[in-house]
């Protein structure tokens, strides 16, 4: 079991550093293991240093920086130990236009090898879709789903 954990931690932290550099160009991210001699009970610390800044405690990061760091962590786990599908519900709400583009590029990359279901109100995210599902309320107040197979139909959010 310990072997398995060692390699899972090692791979996740390699992916984290790489993904952090993509989401924060010029920045530096690192995962550290709090108790390397006790892998079954250890914790994982996240160090996030946006470009041009000094390393500070995680709680001082901005809303958008926190979202990007969390995405880097989750996607690092996903890369290290892939799951057949992912479901993301408005995860990119706090991002500005530039970071939203970076997130969409990452999403497209993931969508090549995995099935992703993503709920969003952001137009750039909608443009990454193979299929768009429009959910709406019918006359009777219950939910209906319409699916648009072709990407070129614009769906009003």
């Amino acid at each position, binding site marked *: 079991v310990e072997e398995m954990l060692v390699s899972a931690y090692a791979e996740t932290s390699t992916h984290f550093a790489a993904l952090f550099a993509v989401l924060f160009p010029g920045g530096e991210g690192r995962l550290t293991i709090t108790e390397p001699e006790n892998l079954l*009970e250890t914790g994982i610390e996240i160090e996030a240093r946006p470009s041009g800044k000094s390393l500070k405690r995680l709680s001082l990061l901005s809303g958008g920086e926190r979202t990007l760091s969390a995405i880097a962590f989750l996607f690092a786990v996903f890369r290290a130990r892939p799951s057949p599908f992912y479901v993301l519900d408005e995860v990119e709400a706090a991002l500005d236009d530039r970071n939203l583009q970076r997130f969409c590029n990452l999403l497209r990359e993931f969508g090549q090898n995995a099935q992703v279901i993503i709920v969003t109100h952001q137009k750039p995210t909608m443009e990454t879709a*193979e299929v768009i599902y429009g959910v709406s309320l019918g006359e009777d107040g219950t939910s209906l789903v319409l699916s648009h197979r072709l990407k070129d139909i614009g769906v009003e959010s």
Partner: protein
Amino acid sequence: MLLKRLRLRGFKSFADKTDIEFAPGINVVVGPNGSGKSNVVDSLSWVMGTQVVRQLRGAKMEDVIFAGTPKRQPLGRAEVELVIDNSSGQIPVDLVELSFGRVLYRSGESRYSLNGQSSRLVDVVELLSDAGVGRTMHNIVGQGRIDAVLAASPQERRLVIEEAA
């Protein structure tokens, strides 16, 4: 393994039978506030065995059963079925397609099924974990939950990696 089709009936705001056919790659769900998008996400975690009502935003499990609108009567049960394409053989069973089902009655009785046959929660969970979908379901990030990864304790973060390992 790929998600192929999700069928909802009487689950939260989905009173009538509703089918969603998923595609490989990126499936984007859009719609106005309150239309039912997050309810679709809840139905996925529910059919895969979620037991914690708070994760479904309810106070008791019965809250997932369609409770009516001014124009529609409440229903007596919530049903969700998820059909998975297993042609890649990722799930170690000799079946090209698998269907997971979950039903809850107002009486509190709850049933799970696998390919139409009644089964136990533990069987469903085991099959899913063979497919790489762990009990903590870190591959489903609910609305407003992205920040929880950073706010979590170091131990909780380890669990995410351990689960996936």
